[in-house]
């Protein structure tokens, strides 16, 4: 811990104090660790150290078959496993040149947007908890549980969904999806409204979040930001709009952007995105209902997947940003190389920049607002 290479002198009397935050710390979600050099309450330097949840996912993938890797992708962003699954499946489908049936795409969209809502709910809720506002967390998490109920009832798993197959999805939406969704939708909206009432115009909340860890659009792009954190900086970039996949070009939704890239903007962007996701699900379900009941759910996929040799990169807009999979095949039944491009990996590397000159309390706020998930960070 005491590894300051150079002797430091602070304002006034002198020494800085190194505070080791994490990997077991209430505010370090999962197993993050920040080594903070502090001068009283203010941060001189904060250096994140990662790898505590490194499981060698990329190495594991090289010895599994293409289908066997799908459950592994669940463990990346465990708050919203479905976009991980779909992103990987899309990469392999692209490698094989498969055309996924529209109905399967719609089911994917519906499930991914549900996962996005769940993910944002966790992020906003945890942000509240870390800033001392405990109650909104419960309002949101109760609704997240309901979303997980839908996942569970779709394929039996709540967190690690292993959703879909390469080439489509394995199961159709059950018949009472509409009822469940109609029941869930107002509750999600209500929870969001209550959260907004408790937080958005709360003087303390505004003081704690506005202007904290603000980041310019230029810096954000330079550091490789994507997703809500980039949009909070004022860059209108959303892969769902810019590089449409899964029929996203057929849906009408807004891409919210912030202005200052601070914690408050990230929070607001996430709140609005939840509402937009609800809209997307409604539209997707409407399209889904127009499909014939016996429309195919799977493309024609061989039993053993042996994509032709080649390498592709495919990305989608996961709740945290651009989640990409680079898959290289040598023509055999195992992928030759899988590279995962997790969104929060790129965002978290700018962490020292984000919290420079802030206070310890801001470090926590900033970290939660980035929604860094150790699972996809360390892989």
């Amino acid at each position, binding site marked *: 811990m005491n590894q300051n290479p150079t002797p430091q002198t602070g304002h006034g009397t002198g020494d800085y104090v190194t505070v080791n935050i994490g990997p077991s710390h209430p505010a370090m979600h999962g197993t993050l660790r920040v080594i903070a050099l502090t001068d009283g309450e203010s941060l001189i330097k904060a250096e994140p150290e990662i*790898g505590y949840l490194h499981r060698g996912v*990329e190495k*594991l993938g090289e*010895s599994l078959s293409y289908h066997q890797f799908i459950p592994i992708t669940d463990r990346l962003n465990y708050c919203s496993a479905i976009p991980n699954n779909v992103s990987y499946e899309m990469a392999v489908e692209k490698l094989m040149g498969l055309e996924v049936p529209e109905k399967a795409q719609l089911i994917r969209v519906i499930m991914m947007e549900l996962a996005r809502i769940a993910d944002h709910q966790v992020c906003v809720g945890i942000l509240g908890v870390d800033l001392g506002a405990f109650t909104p967390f419960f309002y949101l998490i109760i609704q997240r549980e309901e979303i997980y109920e839908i996942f569970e009832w779709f394929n039996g798993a709540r967190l690690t969904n292993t959703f879909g197959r390469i080439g489509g999805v394995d199961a159709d939406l059950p018949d009472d999806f509409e009822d469940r969704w109609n029941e869930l939708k107002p509750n999600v909206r209500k929870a969001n409204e209550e959260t907004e009432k408790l937080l958005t115009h709360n003087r303390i909340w505004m003081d704690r979040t506005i202007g904290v860890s603000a980041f310019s659009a230029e810096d954000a792009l330079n550091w490789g930001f994507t997703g809500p954190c980039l949009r909070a900086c004022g860059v209108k970039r959303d892969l769902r709009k810019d590089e449409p996949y899964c029929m996203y070009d057929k849906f009408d939704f807004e891409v919210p952007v912030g202005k200052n890239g601070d914690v408050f903007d990230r929070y607001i962007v996430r709140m609005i995105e939840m509402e937009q996701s609800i809209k997307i699900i409604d539209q997707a379900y409407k399209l889904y209902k127009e499909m014939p009941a016996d429309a195919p759910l799977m493309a024609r996929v061989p039993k053993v997947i042996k994509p032709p040799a080649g390498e592709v*990169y495919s990305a989608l807009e996961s709740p945290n940003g651009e989640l990409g999979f680079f898959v290289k095949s040598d023509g055999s039944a195992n992928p030759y190389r899988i590279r995962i491009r997790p969104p929060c*990996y*790129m965002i978290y590397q700018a962490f020292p920049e984000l919290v420079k000159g802030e206070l310890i309390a801001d470090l926590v706020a900033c970290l939660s607002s980035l929604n860094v998930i150790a699972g996809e960070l360390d892989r």
Partner: protein
Amino acid sequence: MDLKNRVEQCLGPENLVVAMAECQGDLSVEVPKRSILDVMRLLRDTPGLGFNFLSDVFGVDNLDLNKPKKRPKKKTEEGEGAEEAEETAEKESLPPRFEVIYLLLCLERNERLQVKVRVAEDDMEVDSLYSIWKASDWPEREAFDMYGIRFKGHPNLKRLLMWDDFPAYPLRKDYPLEGQGEERHLIYDD
């Protein structure tokens, strides 16, 4: 004009294109290792290309791909990199073992490009892109961590995911999946 021609036009005159390949619409261009910084600046600043966003940097170990080449007639012959293999075959019997792949993105036109450099086992140093894109900070560290590829000019090139005195490079193809029994002994002492 499609992307391939534009890239060709931009990099071609300077003789910076070693090979180009396209796989399912993903264009990848291989460039000489020593001029990676120039290539990146060109790709970023040339109007009409404008790849202003670095999406990812990572390494690939081609050990297993190269291996069958020793034996005649193997099915991966027509895989990517076959051309380059011929080109470098004069210098050495095998093509360079490692690749570093850069994923670029043009935000204006939403075009993506893979830039690739080959890194031989005896010369594991590539110029760091940190001066152009700060986004290359951790990915380069990870490539170093996992493959031992060193990035010249990187401000803080140390292991990222593995602990600092980990003795091997785990994503190399000759590293066993179950590990080699490395253990991390934490010393709680100050």
